């Protein structure tokens, strides 16, 4: 019986395999966390101005933001990554002239750029929706009190809209974490990249199981953190 259990366990965690690839897998985990963490944060910084631009009355600004969101939301992330890594990366002479070749020859930077541009478009739409969800009466109260536009936005509108945005933003982050596996296709050794490498050498499918569990682990941590933030942002609501 215990022999059977050991066999079963070896199907899931083979000690030899773990010795060879366990540590690299954890390094891959760190790459994934960095990739998603940085691109999501940059996407946040880019997404808010995009959302405001999309709602702007200035026609050219609005059109630019619309076009941006339309393209990056409407085309596959994989295509965007390939366009940047293989497309822009093929213009070596140009990038060397402008001193950006170090950036475009590096798969990690290209993935970071593609993910940032992509998630910014999604986040812009999330912000736009959440800003529109703030009741009109709140804007009117700000105006009636003579609040400056910046004060009204930062102190009244933004905190209320963030509560609305939090759910969809969390969703977007979780989708990003999983979509980041795409980076492994352009030679980035993130979780999936290491798993692919290990599989190509050993043909042992269990590395994919490890990869799946690692993604699950990150998502679970994110889920818990989000729950805390939501609790904090909604402390004024009757619970």
């Amino acid at each position, binding site marked *: 019986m215990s022999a059977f259990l050991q066999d079963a366990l070896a199907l899931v965690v083979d000690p030899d395999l773990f010795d060879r690839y366990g540590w690299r897998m954890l390094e891959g985990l760190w790459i994934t966390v960095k990739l998603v963490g940085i691109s999501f944060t940059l996407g946040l910084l880019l997404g808010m101005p995009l959302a405001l631009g999309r709602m702007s009355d200035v026609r050219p600004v609005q059109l630019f933001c619309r076009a941006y969101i339309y393209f990056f939301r409407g085309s596959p992330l994989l295509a965007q990554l390939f366009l940047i890594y293989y497309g822009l990366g093929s213009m070596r002479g140009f990038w060397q002239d402008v001193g950006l070749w170090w950036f475009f020859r590096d798969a990690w930077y290209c993935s970071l750029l593609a993910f940032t541009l992509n998630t910014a478009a999604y986040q812009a739409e999330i912000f736009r929706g959440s800003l529109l969800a703030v*009741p009109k*009466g*709140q804007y*009117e*109260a700000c*105006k*009636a*009190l*003579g*609040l*400056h536009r910046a*004060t009204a936005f930062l*102190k*009244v509108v933004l*905190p*209320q809209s963030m*509560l609305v945005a939090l759910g969809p933003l969390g969703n977007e982050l979780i989708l990003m974490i999983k979509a980041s596996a795409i980076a492994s296709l352009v030679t980035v050794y993130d979780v999936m990249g290491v798993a692919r490498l290990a599989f190509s050498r050993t043909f042992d499918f269990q590395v994919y199981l490890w990869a799946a569990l690692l993604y699950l682990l990150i998502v679970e941590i994110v889920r818990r953190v989000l729950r805390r933030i939501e609790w904090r*942002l909604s402390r*004024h*609501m*009757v619970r």
Partner: protein
Amino acid sequence: MTQKSAVPPPDKRRPVIEIRGLNKWYGSYHALRSIDLTVHQGERIVLCGPSGSGKSTLIRCINQLERPNEGSILVHGVEVTRDTAEADKALREVGMVFQHFNLFPHMSVLDNCTLAPTTVRGENRRQAEEKAHAILKKVGMDNHAHKYPTQLSGGQQQRVAIARTLCMDPQVILFDEPTAALDPEMVKEVLDTMVNLARSGVTMLCVTHEMGFARQVAERVLFLDHGTVLEDTTPDAFFDNPRTERARNFLNQIL
């Protein structure tokens, strides 16, 4: 109804708001038709009329929540229909209380009251909080200063909204149906607060159908219908002897 003696008389020599030839359209709908109105310092005016008559639109034009299409509005002699720094400054003297309170739900009662004084007028935090506490006390809400709006009843929220407006020391307060969204048992506490306010001598323009309030504190009642001021008279004259047919019909319906 003779309590009005406690309310200071208005100063007829000092116009606070002067409206000339005000017109407002929503698409092809003519909401306000050539309104002329002068409001003097310390005057308390009740505006009433059927739904869609333009009474809310009129007071919302005064503080520019609605943009009029034609005409001029002077507040303390400053044209406020144009976007200028002077207009912004003049409008700081005009406060507003809304039907649905519009308190900031994520801020405590106290923070609701201090946000505008600290950011717009640059009062320091302590000074602003002291003043807010004093004003909250006046409206009977100081013991709730650290609660959030959602923890309060409608009447309490409206009293906080009045306090929030008062914290900016307005010369004029506009009320847009302040008791219309309240449960009946809460109307009185808000009206009592407004009566006290009237005694302080502040200029008030109030869209309401509370006739008791009108008789008790108002010098003037304006009756609007289809975007026109049909009657402009004392509360007693209006409620006892309305001159126009439409005012009579209206009064029959709300009584």
